[in-house]
């Protein structure tokens, strides 16, 4: 199984490919070397023959043509070790001297096979026609060349065996180590599929590609686990938050059914029940809306808008209601501030924040809507002088259904800030809750160059 897997793995195939390339390059290298070496040796041999012939002619020049057989004999003796080949024939083809039998004259360079000293040798030779009509053949055994060839071939054979062994080993090692690391990733994936979301791919700390892959996967898994956890949390919260009002509704209806009531009393019960159902439906509506915003997909509504005008109009809309509750709502917004946003979502975001401030601030408080440029971001803030939110609770209030102890009695779904958070995220804006000394400051930082 494991073996099978090794052969099927892409890392193994890659290693085999590299081994094949290595072998091929060794072969080519050898071929080229061999060819050049051979060529060089052959030329060298021919050269030697030419030199030998020239030296014979030289001696003939000084001693006279009559001395030629003696000159050849002396050369023959001198060059016995390197297996020099000589043959001198008269024009009729009779051998005068030499160490090979008479033959039909061949002019120019040639290769022959002739018996010398009881062994047949391969000879490279050159035939010359002398001025007196005699035929002279000067040659040399090709043993040196042959030996060199043999040596090269043998070296190559050893080389190729070593190359193959090393390549094979390399392939196996690379294949196995890579496979082993891929296997760990796979094992983690399988464990996660089996339901254990806490599993992570081990990181070795070598900072190689596998570590990077593992770190990337782990970050992804962290995010997924996070999402799953919050989703579970949200569905728990939904179940809990909707059960309470539904239980109350049921009790009310059951009570009405059990007792005799006048028509007017029943009307009252029904009206109250409808209000309760409406508030449940409203919670569902808010959840749907958050889901819709979070799901994204609707970037179409995003365009450059003049946030100064938008904020001024929201402040105008809410001021009378704020005044009615003894609050002062004003704005501190620079002129002509532009931001790329969906105007409807942005309006709802600011409206939600102002809504919250109006709802939670005691009479006499001051609420202000601010916007100004901070570096290359646009800061939009809704500040109030109300009770504020304790620092340790600030992160939590952004969660769906989370409500402060102090506000449990106030009517509300606990989804307002979640909606704000979803809208901010949709605009790649940073939402933060801070201290307004006293009170709460909710600020949203929009990237300007978007």
């Amino acid at each position: 199984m494991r073996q099978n897997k090794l052969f099927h793995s892409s890392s193994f195939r890659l290693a085999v490919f590299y081994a094949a390339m290595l072998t091929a390059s060794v072969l080519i290298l050898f071929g080229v070397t061999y060819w050049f070496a051979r060529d060089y040796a052959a030329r060298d041999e021919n050269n030697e023959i030419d030199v030998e012939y020239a030296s014979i002619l030289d001696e003939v020049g000084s001693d006279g043509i009559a001395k030629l057989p003696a000159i050849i004999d002396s050369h023959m003796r001198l060059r016995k070790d390197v297996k020099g080949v000589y043959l001198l024939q008269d024009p009729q083809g009779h051998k005068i001297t030499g160490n090979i039998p008479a033959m039909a004259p061949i002019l120019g360079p040639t290769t022959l096979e002739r018996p010398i000293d009881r062994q047949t040798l391969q000879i490279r030779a050159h035939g010359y026609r002398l001025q007196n009509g005699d035929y002279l053949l000067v040659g040399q055994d090709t043993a040196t060349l042959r030996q060199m060839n043999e040596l090269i071939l043998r070296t190559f054979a050893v080389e190729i065996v070593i190359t193959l062994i090393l390549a094979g080993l390399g392939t196996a090692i690379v294949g196995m180590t890579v496979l082993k690391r891929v296997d760990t990733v796979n094992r983690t994936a399988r464990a996660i599929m089996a339901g254990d979301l806490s599993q992570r791919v081990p990181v070795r700390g070598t900072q190689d590609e596998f570590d990077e892959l593992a770190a990337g996967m782990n970050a992804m898994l962290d995010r997924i686990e996070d999402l799953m956890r919050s989703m579970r949390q949200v569905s728990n919260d939904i179940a809990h938050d909707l059960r309470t009002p539904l239980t109350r509704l049921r009790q009310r209806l059951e009570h009405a059914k059990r007792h005799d009531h006048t028509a007017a009393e029943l009307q009252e019960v029904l009206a109250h029940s409808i209000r309760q159902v409406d508030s449940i439906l409203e919670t569902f509506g808010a959840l749907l809306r958050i889901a819709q915003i979070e799901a994204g997909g609707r970037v179409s509504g995003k365009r450059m808008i003049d946030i100064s005008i938008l904020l001024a109009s929201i402040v105008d809309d809410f001021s009378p209601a704020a005044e009615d509750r003894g609050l002062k709502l004003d704005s501190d917004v620079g002129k002509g501030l532009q931001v790329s946003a969906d105007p409807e979502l942005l309006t709802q975001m600011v409206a939600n924040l102002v809504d919250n401030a109006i709802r939670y601030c005691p009479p006499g408080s001051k609420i202000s809507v601010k916007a100004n440029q901070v570096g290359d971001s646009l800061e939009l803030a809704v500040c109030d002088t109300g009770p504020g939110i304790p620092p340790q609770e600030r992160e939590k209030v952004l969660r769906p259904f989370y409500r402060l102890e102090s506000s449990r009695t106030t009517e509300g779904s606990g989804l307002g800030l979640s909606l704000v958070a979803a809208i901010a995220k949709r605009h790649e804006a940073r939402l933060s809750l801070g201290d307004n000394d006293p009170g709460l400051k909710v600020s949203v930082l929009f990237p300007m160059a978007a």
Partner: protein
Amino acid sequence: MRILVVEDDSETAGYLTGGLEEEGHAVSWSRAGRDGLFLAMTENFDLLIIDRMLPELDGLTLVKTLRAARIETPILFLTTMSGIDDRVTGLNAGGDDYLVKPFAFSELVARVRALSRRPRGTTIDTQFRVADLELDVVKHVVKRAGQEIQLQPREYRLLEYLMRHAGQVVTRTMLLDNVWIYHFDPRTNLVKSHLSRLRTKIDKGFTPELIHTVRGAGYCLRAPE
């Protein structure tokens, strides 16, 4: 009024037809998009109430087909989808108004009335008069008993909407949709605060009172009988 309801959920359809008949309308009902289209093309209705999600032929396509056939009957869309895009596509397809399920029956009745009175065609009124209250859209002037009244921009738009729908009940959501262009319902009761200010300016010191609160439904601007 003759009203056609195209709705696949029989319970919702029953609730709609029953309620509208009680209001004195003649109501026809078809369950599927194709039947609805056939009825709307062949008979004369004063209003069509069409669900967005229908079997066979969806509401959007139905309305597009009707409008392409130059049938200009007012159309009220019903939907469970409250997304901005859904509303925009619905209105672009040729719907006249849009109501998100679940809704209060009083809301439906108010919108049906508003649609039935909406002028067909393009005649635009520029001057409105209810009792001794006058509003001139072109001059942007409001007068009560010949006396000019200064209004804030929002108060002016609120009054204009009420004058255009004089004698009809307008709901809080209708006002939010059309005066504030808020397609969500803020918890803070904006409408109430603005309306009480408008009332102070329009009705205080004058008789009779013209702006009335209709309990459980909305508001109505009307002259006494």
